[in-house]
């Protein structure tokens, strides 16, 4: 695997890989996300208790799952960056963090909008809500730390350390708030065996999760490309790339 990976430590190779991946990721993300969302919002049966308002699940659950998934992706990039001192990995940390922060915000926002009709309140200090809020703060911390360095190479490494400190703390935070207070319903689809959701509601949900995962990947890859170009602006390959894109546009 190392042999396969190490060329991508070079920024030019990483950029080429991204350029190859991006169309596939974005097209499949758009198709799957559109199918899943339309199916969920228009054709899936209404819930017998919550009526149509349960349909926000097709946005809330995927973004909540991915807010954590994206954090782990960021932490893996940070670990790779620290262990093998790869410049491209620390750039990936910086590229991924805002995507995760937006997903976390979407999860919190849709959760509040869902909580109002169902629980009768926009916000409760429940364990899951609180740990999601803290996750948002951790993302913001990583982003703010990266932004405040003038030397982006240093900033990327520092943000990587912060992402790893966060990843050690996340389980501790999660369990501490869990013991502290809980009102949120248990996990719906991670139970193996028999999920507590009807299959005709489950399928569009799974599609939405997959679609949003692909969309997050596409956005991260796109942001990573911009990050590469911004950080390597003095390299000949970036200038050649910029000239090529300019002539394509004209």
């Amino acid at each position, binding site marked *: 695997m190392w042999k396969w990976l190490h060329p991508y430590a070079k920024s030019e190779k990483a950029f080429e890989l991204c350029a190859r991946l991006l169309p596939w990721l974005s097209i499949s993300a758009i198709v799957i996300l559109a199918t899943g969302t339309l199916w969920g919002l228009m054709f899936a049966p209404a819930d017998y208790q919550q009526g149509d308002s349960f349909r926000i699940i097709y946005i809330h659950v995927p973004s909540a799952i991915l807010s954590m998934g994206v954090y782990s992706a960021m932490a893996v990039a940070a670990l790779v960056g*620290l262990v093998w001192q790869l410049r491209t990995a620390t750039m990936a940390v910086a590229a991924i963090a805002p995507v995760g922060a937006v997903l976390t915000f979407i999860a919190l926002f849709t959760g509040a909008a869902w909580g109002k009709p169902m629980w009768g309140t926009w916000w409760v200090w429940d364990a899951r809500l609180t740990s999601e809020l*803290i996750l948002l*703060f*951790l993302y*913001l*911390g990583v982003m*703010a*730390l990266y932004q*405040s*360095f003038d*030397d982006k190479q*240093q900033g990327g*490494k*520092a943000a990587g*350390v*912060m992402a*790893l*400190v*966060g990843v*050690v*703390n996340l389980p*501790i*935070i999660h369990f*501490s*708030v869990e*013991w*502290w207070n809980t009102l949120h319903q248990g996990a719906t689809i991670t139970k193996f065996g028999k999920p507590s959701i009807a299959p005709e509601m489950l399928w569009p949900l799974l599609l939405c999760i997959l679609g949003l995962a692909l969309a997050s990947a596409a956005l991260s890859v796109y942001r990573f490309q911009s990050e590469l170009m911004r950080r390597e602006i003095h390299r000949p390959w970036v200038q050649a790339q910029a000239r090529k894109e300019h002539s394509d546009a004209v």
Partner: protein
Amino acid sequence: MKAALGALLGRELALAFRQKGELLQPLVFFILVISLFPLGVGPGPQTLQKIGPGVIWVAVLLASLLGMERLFRDDFNDGWLEQMSLSAVPLTLVVLIKVMAHWLTCVLPLLLISPLLALFLHLTADMYKALLMTLILGTPLLSLVGATGVALTTGLQRGGVLLSLLLLPLFIPLLIFATSAVDAAALQLSYNGQLAIIAALLLLALALTPFATAYALRVVQG
């Protein structure tokens, strides 16, 4: 090596005691924040007793953040830290000594003044005992984890607000367990479980954070 570390501790303490103004700041801040709460929420003993442990812990968090900011700042600016990272003494041990000195000079006074504040907030003797235990176990954890955050923001302009953004979310578990221990003590329940968890977190931090802090210091030195 032992002599070097001892000398280092002596240096840190001497430096701290020669800047008495800076030494007092967190303490005064701590007392002020706590005396604002009775004014803000009303002087009823029941209310104060209920919010007391949380208030004291939040004030400890903020005061130690305030005192923490300059943990590596001067040493970074005058190049001492760079010399230290070149020396034969491992930077992790240097970090550990600095954190220890910081705890002794900045945090220990907060612990010593805490009986007075417990009186301000009408805590019972049981509650105060639990509070003191959580403070003794919890504040070294604060200093250790805080040092990592401080190291990451050393050398940055306006690192202060950023530091609180980085560190406060990490302190949430400590706050939860500490206040729940005091609440349990208020109900005459056993709070050994909470203390054990805080102690476990402290040991984890003691094992991991010196390395993270030393690495962060190397990163900010470029």
